[in-house]
């Protein structure tokens, strides 16, 4: 098929939008930690642009999207971007240069790794995190991306719908975050000492960049620049709006409408609509977003307050629970009237689709949890996942990076 310039322009633009989400996430997370850990938290996300950006072109793209091996993993035929050029791929995004599709996918891998770091901030050893991230990308992300999106992947063949990465990105990162929390334990002083966010305006800026970038994430996943992209765009914005509004109201019912809660709601809504964006009507975004906030809010209450689990920036509650709900909601709300390449969900008379989504959720979540436990344990034994007591008390900015966020004698 000839290259379509409109599709290409949109996909390259979308790749840039998704790239911006990672620095956005860095600010979103960085504003929520204590002053002594701002830079280290930002670095955990930003470093992924370097680390994953490299591994992806060297072998990552190949193992995720190369020739299928048993539905489980891609081959080595795209190693070092061999055979990935200016002409279109025969299988993926057939109207744009293969390179454009490759770099779009690269940005997804980058942010997925950055996402789970929010669970381990303020106590994880940076060197251990780097090694773990490379292993996690290779042994967990690349296979699961292949299962869902790779040509011949077993979940793709089964008919599991994941438009923009609800399972591959959000369930993967969220469930892995939970496993890391179990391995790493709480921050010193949690929960009795106040863990006050150092800069909530920075969190808002980060959330704004995430919302902005998410248009590339979801509408870009149409891989064309026509009606489907527009539909996904509107569904995305609608879900984010509904979720932000819902969280604001829940927070208000409990006490005051917090800024931190409202922007968190927006992100949770974006997470939930991700797998569904191009399969559901734009208005389905209202229910998907609103319910996502309710699930995530009470999930946080249960995990953090009732059980005292220190998933520090609530990665499992936001991305794990939000992603699971989104993937299942896709099995409820999907309709072929929006996307003929999709399927009808339970509400359109096709209960089977819901079961398929359950299989997708269960297999990715199970694989991510067990895999992270094993890899995390391995890195803990060889390097040690956690910094020492003094390093943690002083803060990771100085102990891990030799810098501080806010310099100068006077504030």
């Amino acid at each position, binding site marked *: 098929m000839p290259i379509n310039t409109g599709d290409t322009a949109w996909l390259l633009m979308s790749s840039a939008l998704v790239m911006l989400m990672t620095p956005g996430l860095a600010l979103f997370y960085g504003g929520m930690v204590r002053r002594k850990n701002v830079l280290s938290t930002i670095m955990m996300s930003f470093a992924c642009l370097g680390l994953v950006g490299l591994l992806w072109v060297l072998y990552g793209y190949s193992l995720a999207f190369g020739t299928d091996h048993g539905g489980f993993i891609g081959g080595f035929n795209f190693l070092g971007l061999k055979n990935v050029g200016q002409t279109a791929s025969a299988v993926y995004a057939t109207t744009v240069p293969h390179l454009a599709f490759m770099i779009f996918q690269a940005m997804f891998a980058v942010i997925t790794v950055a996402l789970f770091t929010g669970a381990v901030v303020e106590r994880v050893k940076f060197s251990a995190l780097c090694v773990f991230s490379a292993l996690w990308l290779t042994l967990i992300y690349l296979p699961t991306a292949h299962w869902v999106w790779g040509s011949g992947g077993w979940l793709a063949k089964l008919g599991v719908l994941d438009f923009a990465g609800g399972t591959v990105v959000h369930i993967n990162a969220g469930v892995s975050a939970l496993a890391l929390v179990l391995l790493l334990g709480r921050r010193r002083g949690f929960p009795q000492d106040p863990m*006050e966010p150092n800069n909530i305006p920075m969190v808002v800026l980060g959330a704004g960049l995430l919302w902005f970038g998410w248009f590339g994430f979801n509408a870009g996943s149409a891989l064309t620049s026509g009606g489907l992209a527009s539909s996904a765009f509107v569904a995305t914005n609608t879900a984010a709006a509904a979720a932000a509004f819902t969280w604001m109201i829940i927070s208000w019912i*409990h006490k005051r409408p*917090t800024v*931190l*809660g409202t922007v968190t709601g927006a992100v949770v809504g974006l997470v939930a609509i991700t797998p569904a964006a191009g399969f559901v009507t734009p208005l389905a975004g209202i229910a998907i977003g609103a319910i996502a906030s309710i699930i995530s*809010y009470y999930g946080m*209450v249960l995990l953090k*307050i009732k059980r005292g689990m220190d998933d520090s920036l609530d990665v499992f509650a936001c991305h794990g629970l939000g992603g699971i709900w989104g993937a299942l909601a896709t099995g409820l709300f999907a309709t072929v009237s929006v996307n003929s390449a999709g399927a009808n969900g339970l509400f359109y008379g096709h209960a089977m689709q819901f079961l398929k989504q359950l299989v997708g959720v269960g297999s990715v979540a199970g694989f991510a949890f067990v895999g992270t436990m094993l890899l995390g344990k391995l890195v803990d034994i060889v390097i040690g996942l956690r910094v020492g007591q003094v390093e943690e008390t002083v803060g990771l900015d100085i102990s891990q990076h030799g810098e501080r966020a806010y310099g100068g004698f006077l504030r």
Partner: protein
Amino acid sequence: MKKIEAIIREERLDAVKNALEEKSYFGMTVSEVSGRGKQKGIPLQWRVGEYRVDLLPKLKIELVVLDDDVTTAIDAIVQNARTGETGDGKIFVLPVETVVRVRTGDRNESAI
């Protein structure tokens, strides 16, 4: 000569400053401080639930006055810093040995 250190609520600064100025105490140093007393802190909200912040932001006013002026200055501060709720602050009065005006080298009473 005495140094008056007054810890007050941030929102009472203008009133205290104006009252001191009216009594012709113009010079002062104000700094942002954190501290705690019987007020015991306030709860702030996280995404869900609350955490307690027990060191609260206050302002510290420092001024040096003649011994005879201490009562007048304290009264001006107390009257304008008081709300009647816990957290209104504290005043400390300390003896001062020497005062030097940097520009002229004047000492003590003539330097205040």
